[in-house]
C-alpha cells in the first residue's frame, strides 16, 4: 500500500514541481533551479526505495494502482512496476536530477519555463514506462513531444527550429499510425470478445490473424522504430541532438530513445507474436544495419555531438538484436544495454555540454591535448568513452556482450539447420564492436591527446557540481558493470515472460477474463 502510494508520488512529483515553480516570483532563478533539482532528487530517492523493495521473485505487477478513468471505454488509470520497466524508471529518475544540475549554468534564459519543461518531460517519460493501459501509454507517449519540442526549439542552437519541427513531425507521423493501430486493436478485440479493454495484460491474450498482426506490428513498429531510431528512420536524430541544449540531448539519448525499444519489448513484439516470428530476420537485419551503419557514420563526423548521436543509433541496434534473439541472455542483455546506454550516452552528452560551455564549439578539430589542461575532464571522458566501447567492468560490456551472446546462441542451431542469415548477422554485429572502439578511441585521442589546442583559454577544470554529476554517473556505470546480478535478477522473470509471449505458437482465440 505504502509502495503503491510512493509509486504514484514518483509519477506525479514533477507535476507538483511545476505548480511550485509557478509560484516563484520573477527573477529568482536560483530558487527555481533548487525547486526543480530537489523535486527530481526526491523522485529519485523514492524510486530507489521502490527498487530496493521490488520483489524479484514476483513475475506480476508490483505496487500497482488501478482506478477507472474513462469507464465507458474500459480505460483505467493503471500503473505499476514490473521487470520490464523497473530499471528504466530507475534510470529515468536517476538522470533527472543530473540533467537539472547539469543545466544550472547553461540555461540562463526563461529559466522557469525550462525547468517546467524538464519536469513535464520527466512526468511523461515515467508515465510512459509505468502505464499498464494502452490508452494511458499512448497519452504519455504522445504528450512527451510537447516539452521536447519546446526544449529543443527555445534553448537549442542555430538551426533549432528546423531540428525541432523535424523531430516532432517525424515522431508524430509514427504516433498517428500507432493511434490508428491502437484503435483497431481494441475495436477488433471488442468485436470478438465483447469486452472493451486497454489493459496490456488483456491485450496480450488477443489472438489476431497473421495478416492483421503484420499490419498492426508495422504501425506500432514504425512509431517505435522512429524513436529508437532504426536505420533508415534515424535522420531526425543527428539534427535533434546537435541542436538541442545539453539537457535536451541527455534526455533524448538517456531516456527518450529507450521508449522505442521499451515499446517493442512491452508492446510491439508480445502483442503480435506470430508477426514478430515471421519478421524476426528482417528485424535482426535492420538492427545489424543500424549497428554497422551508425558506427560508420560516427566514424566520419567532425562534430563531437554527432559522433555520440550516431553512436547511439549503433548502440541501440544491439538492443533490437537482443530483443530479436528470443533468447533469455539476449533479452536480458538488451535490457542492460538500454540502461547502460542511457548512462553512458547521457554522460557523454553532459561532458560535451561542459566543454561547450567553456569553449563554445563542438568541432573535434578545435580541440587537442585536453588531458594536459583539463586532467580531471580527460579522466572522466576516457572512462565514459571506454564504457561506450563496452570495456569489461563497465555497464557497456554487460549489455553488449549478453545481447551478442544471446543472438549467437539462437543463431547457431539455425546455422546447423542450413539457415545462413542469422550467423552472418551475428558476425556483422560483432564488427560493430570493433568499429565502436575505433570511433570512440579516435575521438578520445583527437580530443584528449596530441598537441594542446583549445579555443578561449584559459579555463577552469571541472567545478564541484560537474564533478559530483560525473562521479554519480561513473559510479552507476561501474556498479552495473561489476554487479549486474542485482538488476538482472529483477528483470529475469520479465525476460522469460517476454520470450514466452513472443515465441507463443499461434493459438485459437480464447475468451478474455472479465475486467476485475
Amino acid at each position, binding site marked *: 500500500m505504502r509502495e503503491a502510494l510512493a509509486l504514484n508520488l514518483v509519477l506525479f512529483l514533477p507535476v507538483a514541481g511545476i505548480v511550485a515553480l509557478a509560484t516563484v516570483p520573477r527573477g529568482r532563478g536560483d530558487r527555481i533551479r533548487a525547486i526543480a533539482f530537489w523535486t527530481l532528487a526526491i523522485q529519485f530517492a523514492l524510486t530507489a526505495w521502490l527498487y530496493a523493495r521490488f520483489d524479484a521473485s514476483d513475475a506480476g505487477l508490483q505496487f500497482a494502482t488501478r482506478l477507472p478513468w474513462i469507464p465507458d471505454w474500459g480505460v483505467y488509470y493503471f500503473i505499476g512496476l514490473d521487470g520490464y520497466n523497473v530499471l528504466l524508471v530507475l534510470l529515468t529518475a536517476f538522470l533527472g536530477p543530473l540533467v537539472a544540475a547539469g543545466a544550472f549554468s547553461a540555461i540562463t534564459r526563461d529559466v522557469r519555463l525550462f525547468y517546467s519543461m524538464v519536469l513535464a518531460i520527466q512526468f511523461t517519460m515515467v508515465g510512459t514506462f509505468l502505464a499498464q493501459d494502452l490508452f494511458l501509454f499512448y497519452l504519455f507517449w504522445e504528450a512527451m513531444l510537447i516539452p521536447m519540442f519546446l526544449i529543443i526549439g527555445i534553448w537549442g542552437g542555430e538551426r533549432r527550429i528546423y531540428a525541432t519541427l523535424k523531430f516532432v513531425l517525424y515522431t508524430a*507521423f509514427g504516433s498517428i499510425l500507432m493511434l490508428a493501430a491502437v484503435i483497431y486493436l481494441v475495436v477488433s478485440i471488442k468485436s470478438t470478445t465483447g469486452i472493451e479493454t486497454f489493459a496490456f495484460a488483456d491485450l496480450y491474450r488477443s489472438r489476431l490473424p497473421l495478416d492483421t498482426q503484420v499490419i498492426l506490428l508495422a504501425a506500432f513498429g514504425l512509431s517505435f522504430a522512429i524513436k529508437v531510431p532504426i536505420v533508415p528512420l534515424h535522420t531526425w536524430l543527428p539534427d535533434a541532438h546537435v541542436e538541442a541544449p545539453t539537457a535536451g540531448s541527455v534526455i533524448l539519448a538517456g531516456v527518450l530513445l529507450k521508449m522505442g525499444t521499451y515499446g517493442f519489448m512491452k508492446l510491439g513484439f508480445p502483442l503480435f507474436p506470430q508477426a514478430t516470428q515471421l519478421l524476426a530476420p528482417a528485424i535482426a537485419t535492420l538492427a545489424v544495419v543500424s549497428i554497422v551503419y551508425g558506427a560508420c557514420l560516427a566514424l566520419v563526423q567532425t562534430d563531437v555531438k554527432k559522433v555520440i548521436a550516431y553512436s547511439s543509433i549503433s548502440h541501440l541496434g544491439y538492443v533490437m538484436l537482443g530483443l530479436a534473439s528470443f533468447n533469455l541472455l539476449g533479452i536480458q542483455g538488451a535490457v542492460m544495454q538500454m540502461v547502460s546506454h542511457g548512462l553512458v550516452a547521457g554522460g557523454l552528452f553532459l561532458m560535451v555540454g561542459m566543454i561547450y560551455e567553456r569553449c563554445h564549439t563542438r568541432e573535434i578539430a578545435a580541440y587537442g591535448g585536453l588531458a594536459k589542461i583539463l586532467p580531471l575532464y580527460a579522466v572522466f571522458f576516457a572512462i565514459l568513452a571506454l564504457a561506450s566501447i563496452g570495456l569489461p567492468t563497465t555497464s557497456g560490456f554487460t549489455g553488449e556482450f549478453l545481447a551478442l551472446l544471446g543472438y549467437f546462441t539462437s543463431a547457431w542451431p539455425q546455422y546447423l539447420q542450413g539457415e545462413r542469415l542469422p550467423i552472418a548477422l551475428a558476425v556483422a554485429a560483432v564488427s560493430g564492436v570493433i568499429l565502436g572502439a575505433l570511433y570512440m578511441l579516435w575521438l578520445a585521442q583527437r580530443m584528449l591527446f596530441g598537441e594542446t589546442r583549445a579555443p578561449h583559454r584559459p579555463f577552469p577544470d571541472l567545478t564541484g557540481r560537474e564533478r559530483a554529476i560525473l562521479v554519480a554517473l561513473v559510479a552507476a556505470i561501474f556498479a552495473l558493470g561489476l554487479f549486474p546480478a542485482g538488476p538482472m535478477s529483477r528483470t529475469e522473470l520479465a525476460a522469460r515472460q517476454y520470450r514466452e509471449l513472443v515465441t507463443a505458437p499461434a493459438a485459437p482465440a480464447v475468451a478474455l477474463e472479465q475486467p476485475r
Partner: protein
Amino acid sequence: MNASTIFIAMLPEHVLLAGIVALLALEIAGGRSRLALGISLAAVLAACAVALSLAQQGYAAVPFPGQLSVAPAVSVAQAIVLALAIPSLLISRDDFPGRTFHVLVLSSLYGACLMVSADSFLTLFLGIELLSLPVYALVVLAYRRPESAEAALKYLVLGGTASATLLMGAALLFGASGSLGLESFRLALDSRDGFAVAGVLLVLVAFFLKAAVAPFHTWAPDAYDAASVPVTAFMATLVKAAVLLAAARLFGTAPLGPAATGIIAALPLLSIAWGNLAAMRQPGLRRMIAYSSVAHAGYLFYAFLGEGALRFQAIAFYVLAYGVMNLLAFAVLPPDGDDRARDRLDNLKGLVHRQPYAAVALAIAMLSLAGLPPFPGFIAKFLIFKNAIAAGYTLYGVLGLVGSYLGIYFYLRVVQYLFMSEAPAGTRSCAPGGLAAGAGLLCLAAAVVMSVAPGWVIDLLP
C-alpha cells in the same frame, strides 16, 4: 400540449426571450450600455442552468407534437451551446461596447436552441434562419472595414443558398414520404427512391454549407477574417456546434444507407485534407482558424460514420472541446487598437516575453486543437475515430487520422512563433482585458476538467 409543458420544456428559450425583451427595453429607455452585457450574461447563464437542470432530471416532453420535443439529449445540446456563449460574451466588451451585439447574440442563441430541439423541417428551418440572420449582421458590425461588407454579403448569399437547398431537400423528402417530420429524412437514408435520395443529398449539402465542409467552405475564410474577433469566435465555435448538434438530431440513430455513406465518407476527408493544407499558408490567425475549422468540420462529420447510438456523445464532446479551446485562443489574443494587426501571426512572435500567461494559454489552445494529448482535443478526436473504426470504416478512419497529422504543423507553427521567435522591433502587446482574461480562465478550467476527468464529462452526455 398544455401551457405548463410549453413553459417548462422551452424554459431556456423563454429565458433568452426575456433577456432580448429586457435588452430592447433598455435600448428604448437608453440605459447604460454596460448593463447590456450584464443582462445578456445573466440570461445566458440562467438559460444554461435551466437546460442543465432539465437534463439532470431527465426531463422529456413534447410541447408541440411533430414540431418540437425535448429530451435530455436536447437539453444537453442546448446547455453546450449556451455554455459556449458565455466566454463569447465576455470577450466582446472591448469590441462591442454597445447593446446591438447582445440582442443579436441572444436572438442567434434562441435559434440554436430551437434547432437542436426540432422535430420537423419547419422548426429546423426556423431555427437555422434565426441562428444565421443575426450572424450576418454581426459580421457587418465589425469595425466597418470595407471588406467586412463584402464578406458579409458573401456569407449572406451562401447562407441563403444553404437555406434554399435545405428547403428544396425538405420539399423532395415531403414528396417522397408525405411528411415534413425529420423522420422522413431518416427513412429516406435507406431508400432507393430517386426523390428521397436527392432530398437527402440536398439536406446534407445545406448542412455542409452551414458547417463549412469542403468544397462548400469558401465563405468561411472571408467571413471569419472580416468579422471582429468576438464574432469570429462566435461563428467558429457556437454556430458550428449548433449546426452539428442539429445534424446529430436530424440523423438520430438511423443507419446511414449507401448514398449518404459515400458522401459522408468522402467530403469530410476532403475537408480535413484541404482545411489543414490551406491553413498552413495563412498569415493571420482568423484565416488560419477558419481553415482549421473546415478541417474540424470534417472530423465532426466523421462522427456520423459511427454507430447511431454513439454519435451524439462523440459530437457533443467534440464541439465542447473544440469550442472551449477556440474560445481560449480568442480570449487571450492580445488586444490591439488595429483589428488587422491584432490578427497577424507575426505579431505573436516572442509573445512569451511580453505576455507569458497569454502565450502559454494560446499554446495550450493550439496544441489541443492539433489533437495532441493530454489536452481535450485528443480525447475528442479519439472518440470520433474510434467510433468510425468500430463501425467498420477502418480505411477512412486511418485516412482521416493521417489527414489530422497534416494539421499538426500549422498549430505548431503558432507555438513556434509564440516561444521561439524574436519579436520584430517595436512590437508591443497589451494584456487581455479583465473580462477576456476571465473568459480565458473559464475555458482553461473547462479544459483541465475535460483532460483530467474525461470519463465524468462523457457520463454527463446521454
